[in-house]
C-alpha cells in the first residue's frame, strides 16, 4: 500500500520532493530519513479500524512504541524512527500516515477498503508534504 501511494506521488511529485521506496530495512530507513527537512512516511498498520482508515502520527513530536521482539526482517519502522531520533537525524517535521490494513497475506493485493481510500490517502500525503 505504501508503495502504491509512493508511486502515485512519484508520478507527479511536488517540487523539491524526493519519493523513496523502502523495503523496511533498519539501516536503509535511517539513511533515508537523514538530511530531509520534512518526511512523510506511509505504511500499513493495524489499529483495529475499518480497512483504509487513516491515522496521523507526528513522530517528530511523539515517540513511537517499539515492539520488544523484532521480526525476521529486523526492526521495523518504529525502531528506525526512534533510532534516527537518538542519532540526531530525524527530520524536524516527520509524520507517519498509518493506514489500517484489510489483509497482509502474501500476494493478497489491496483490500477493497484500502483500494477505495487510495485517492484520499494520496491527497493527505501531498497535503502533509506541502504543509507550512
Amino acid at each position: 500500500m505504501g508503495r502504491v501511494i509512493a508511486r502515485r506521488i512519484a508520478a507527479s511529485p511536488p517540487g523539491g520532493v524526493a519519493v523513496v521506496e523502502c523495503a523496511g530495512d533498519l539501516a536503509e530507513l535511517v539513511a533515508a530519513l537523514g538530511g530531509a527537512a520534512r518526511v512523510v512516511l506511509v505504511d500499513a498498520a493495524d489499529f483495529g479500524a475499518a480497512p483504509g482508515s487513516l491515522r496521523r502520527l507526528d513522530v517528530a513530536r511523539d515517540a513511537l512504541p517499539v515492539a520488544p521482539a523484532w521480526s525476521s526482517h529486523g526492526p521495523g519502522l518504529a525502531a528506525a524512527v526512534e533510532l534516527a531520533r537518538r542519532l540526531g537525524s530525524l527530520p524536524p517535521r516527520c509524520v507517519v500516515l498509518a493506514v489500517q490494513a484489510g489483509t497482509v497475506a502474501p500476494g493478497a493485493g489491496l483490500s477493497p477498503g484500502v483500494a477505495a481510500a487510495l485517492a484520499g490517502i494520496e491527497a493527505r500525503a501531498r497535503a502533509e508534504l506541502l504543509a507550512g
Partner: protein
Amino acid sequence: MTTDGGTGPDPGPRTRTVRVDLMARVEGEGALRLRVRDGRVASAELRIFEAPRYFEALLRGRAATEAPDITARICGICPVAYQMSAVHAIEALAGVTVPAPLAALRRLLYCGEWLASHALHVVMLHAPDFLGYAGGIELAQDHPERVRAGLALRQAGNAILRTLGGREIHPVNVRVGGFYRLPTRGELATLREELLPARDLALDLVRWVAGFAAPDVTRDYRFVALVPDDEYPMNHGPIGTSTGLRFPAADFAAHFGELQVPWSNALQARARDGAAYLTGPLARYALNRDRLQPVALAAAAAAGLGAECRNPWRSIVVRAVEILHACDAAIALIEAYVEPDAPAVPVPLRAGTGHAATEAPRGLLYHRYTLAADGTITACSIVAPTSQNQASIEDDLRVLAGDWLQLPDAALRERCEAVVRNHDPCISCATHFLDLTVEHVAG
C-alpha cells in the same frame, strides 16, 4: 521463592523457576525457562513458541527450480543462505558444479549477507549486553558513532545483496545454475568503492568489541562447520567437527539427527551419539582460522582470540572478525572478477536425492531434496543452524546460570537472555518445520 509472573502453586523454597516470557533482542519469538532445585540448575529450556511454518511441506509437489525462492522466505535476515543451500543441493543431484566465475559471484553474495546480518547483531542486539544498555536504540544515545558505523556496515552488505540479488530482502536473482542477471563491471566497481571504507569500519569494530569486559569462560563445545581446503567456509567443503570427523553433506543424517522436545515448536538437533554440538562463528573460527583473509587473521590475533575461542561471551569478537573477513573477501572477489560466459549453466533435473550444506551467518544450514524424474520435489529436509545450536544454548544456560543463582530474578533473567544472544539465534528459521498431515473429512 515463588515463580516470577506465573500462576499456580508456590513450588516451595527449595525450588525456583525463572521465566522469560518473551526474549528481547533475539530474532523471532522465543522464551526460556530455567528450573533451580536445591541450589543447582536442574533444567534449562529454550522455548520456541513462534508458530511452525511448514516450509518442508510447502515444498513438496513444487518444482525444484522454485526451491531458492520459496526457501528464501523462511528468513528475512539470512535468505541467501537458504538459496545457496537449495541450489547447491539440487545441482549436486544433477552432478553440476557451476563454473568458477559464477561460484565467485555466489560467494560475493554470501559476503553481503554475512556483513548485513552480523553487523545488525553485533551493534544493535549484542553490544548493548556488554555496555549496560537495554538495546541498540538506547546505545545510540551515548554511542552514536558506533551505531552509525554498524548501520553503514549493514548498508554495505545490503548493497551487495541488491547488486547481486536484486534486492536486500528476499533476493530474487538467484536460480538453480547461477543467476538470472549478471552484475555489470560498473556495478561491481561501485560496490568496491562502498566496501573500502566499510573495511576500515569493520577493523575498528573488531578493536571496539575486543575491549568489552567478558566473563572468563571455557565451554567444551563440539564444533561443527564446513572445512574447505581453500577458503574460509561459505558455500562448499566437507563438514568437519572438532572431534576430528570429516564427511560430505550427503552423510549429514548419518551423523546428526533432529528430535522434537515438548517445550519447543522448533526441532533440536544432536549428534547420533546424543551429544549437543555448536555451529556458527565460534565453530568456523576454530576449524578454519588459518583460511581467514590476512587482515582478519591479524585482527583476530590482535584481539587475543588465539587458535580457537570457546568463550561464548567472546563470540561477538569472532563475529566482528567475520565482518572484516567478509568485507575484505568481497573486495578481493570484485578485484579478481572474471565475467562468466553466461548468467547460469544448464542443470538437468533427474530423479534422486541431493544434499548440500552452506554456512549461514548463524552456522551450518543443511538441505536435502528428493526429486521425481520431472524435477518435482517429493520430499525435503531443512536443518537450520539455530535448531542445531539449541541444545548447546541450553547447556550454556545450565552451566553458566549456576553462578548467578544469588541474583534477584530480574537480574538473573537478563543474564540468561544474554547467554542466548551470544549465539545470535534466528527463531524464524528454527520454526520452519513440522510434519504436516492433511486429513480430508467428508461432509
